[in-house]
């Protein structure tokens, strides 16, 4: 059973020529329709996140400024990010979508969730929009689960590092943030040595991959580096920042993944959930419309346990040698953090 939220009628959040465009949702939903789920497809109700739900992860000043900016007509927020007069309302719907999917999964105690909403969210900081993102959708959903006493694993396989999500939960011990991303690349953060704050050491796992890296390298890094940390953390929910711009056809970056790789990743992250009804995928990036459709199809198919002949998984790209070095660099960063803590204590 697939529980989705979206798509919304969001053509009002659009800037001519911009790659983060309404057609992305059409492609993502075509990927959902390709599953032919019939009555196993549940559409959760539309919901606009409340201020109380948003201020768990964003500053009140920022929310006021963003709302005022949109109401005054919008415009370019930075060199990448835009907002229109309607973007404030649409962004709140995108932020609220995950909340309703979670509610529905909890009610049914079964299924996989998919949030087909835009604008994406994982670059949005507590007090700043950036990287096409206005509100951090996955963070708003995580904060709700935290308020219920859950331990949340966020897996972010978008090709760009989710700096906003990392910043928001930097010092939160009940959130484990794991990101695979191309490096160097926008936003410039996401090095292996970023391991979390003093109260959440080892709760951030960054896996930067070189341009040209393939799915086999990503899977090995998840197994070798993130796997043991996830096992120790023992999550009760798994939320996925599912960007599909690491696909080899995507124009925004240079990784070489296929839809088959996303299927394998989906199967892998589903195994981290303690039981059915505890995995939600959030659409982040993905700008080649065909790749987006096939990747959404493959990902959800795998998460649901269906058989689907996706593109063959990729392999043979660079980065295998990085994985061993990443492991050592992480250990060193954690030891240094503990050592500096000990020095300050004495």
């Amino acid at each position, binding site marked *: 059973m697939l529980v989705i939220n979206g798509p919304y009628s969001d053509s009002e959040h659009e800037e001519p020529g911009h790659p983060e465009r309404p057609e992305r949702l059409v492609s993502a939903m075509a990927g959902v329709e390709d599953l032919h789920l019939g009555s196993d497809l549940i559409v959760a109700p539309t919901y606009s996140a409340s201020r109380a739900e948003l201020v768990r992860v964003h500053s009140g000043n920022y929310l006021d400024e963003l709302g005022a*900016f949109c109401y005054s*007509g919008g415009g370019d927020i*930075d060199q990448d990010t835009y907002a229109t007069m309607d973007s404030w309302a649409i962004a709140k719907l995108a932020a609220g979508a995950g909340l309703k999917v979670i509610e529905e999964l909890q009610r049914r105690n079964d299924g996989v969730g998919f949030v087909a909403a835009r604008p994406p969210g994982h670059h949005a900081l507590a007090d700043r929009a*950036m990287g096409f993102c206005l509100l951090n959708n996955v963070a708003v959903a995580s904060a709700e689960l935290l308020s219920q006493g859950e331990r949340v694993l966020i897996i972010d396989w978008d090709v760009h590092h989710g700096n906003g999500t990392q910043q928001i939960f930097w010092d939160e011990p009940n959130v484990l943030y794991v990101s695979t991303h191309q490096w160097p690349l*926008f*936003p410039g953060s996401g090095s292996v040595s970023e391991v979390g704050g003093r109260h959440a050491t080892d709760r951030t796992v960054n896996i930067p991959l070189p341009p040209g890296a393939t799915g086999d390298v990503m899977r090995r890094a998840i197994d070798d580096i993130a796997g043991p940390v996830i096992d120790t953390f023992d999550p009760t929910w798994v939320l996925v920042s599912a960007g599909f711009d690491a696909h080899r056809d995507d124009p925004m970056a240079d990784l070489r993944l296929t839809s088959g790789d996303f299927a394998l990743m989906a199967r892998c992250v589903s195994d981290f959930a303690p039981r059915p009804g505890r995995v939600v995928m959030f659409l982040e990036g993905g700008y080649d419309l065909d790749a987006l459709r096939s990747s959404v199809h493959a990902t959800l198919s795998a998460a649901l346990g269906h058989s689907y002949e996706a593109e063959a998984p990729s392999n043979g790209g660079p980065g295998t040698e990085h994985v061993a070095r990443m492991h050592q660099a992480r250990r060193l960063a954690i030891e240094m953090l503990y050592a500096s803590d000990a020095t300050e204590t004495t």
Partner: protein
Amino acid sequence: MKPLQNLAVGYDGSPDAAIAVRWAFGTARETGATVTIVHATGLLEHLHERFSPDRLPPALLALAEECEFNTSSLRWLVEDGDACSVLLRMGSPPVNADVLVVGSRGQGKRVGLLIGSTSLEVVEHATLPVVVVPSSNATP
């Protein structure tokens, strides 16, 4: 106050950024400081490859010549990230800027809002002194 040794200037190719660069060149010439001109490579730039990290834009060389600034004291840095985040990193190694110089934009119909103005965002969050150089179109 310690003497100025390194000015970092944000540059996006706009006329206002050029005004900030001129101000930095003039100040550095008087103080003997080096100038690091930094360009933030955003998401969209990946589609267009606007600025190369290996080559100083001709417009900057022309500005240096116009300001009679010795290019041996000039560094060019292209960093991944949004403009605000990249500029805020300039106070840290390896650049270790003493002062951050930015052009003034985002004024007008949304005066007072941080959103949409890199210079105001930088001023809000910076941990080092920031010089905001007024636009040529600024009105008193």
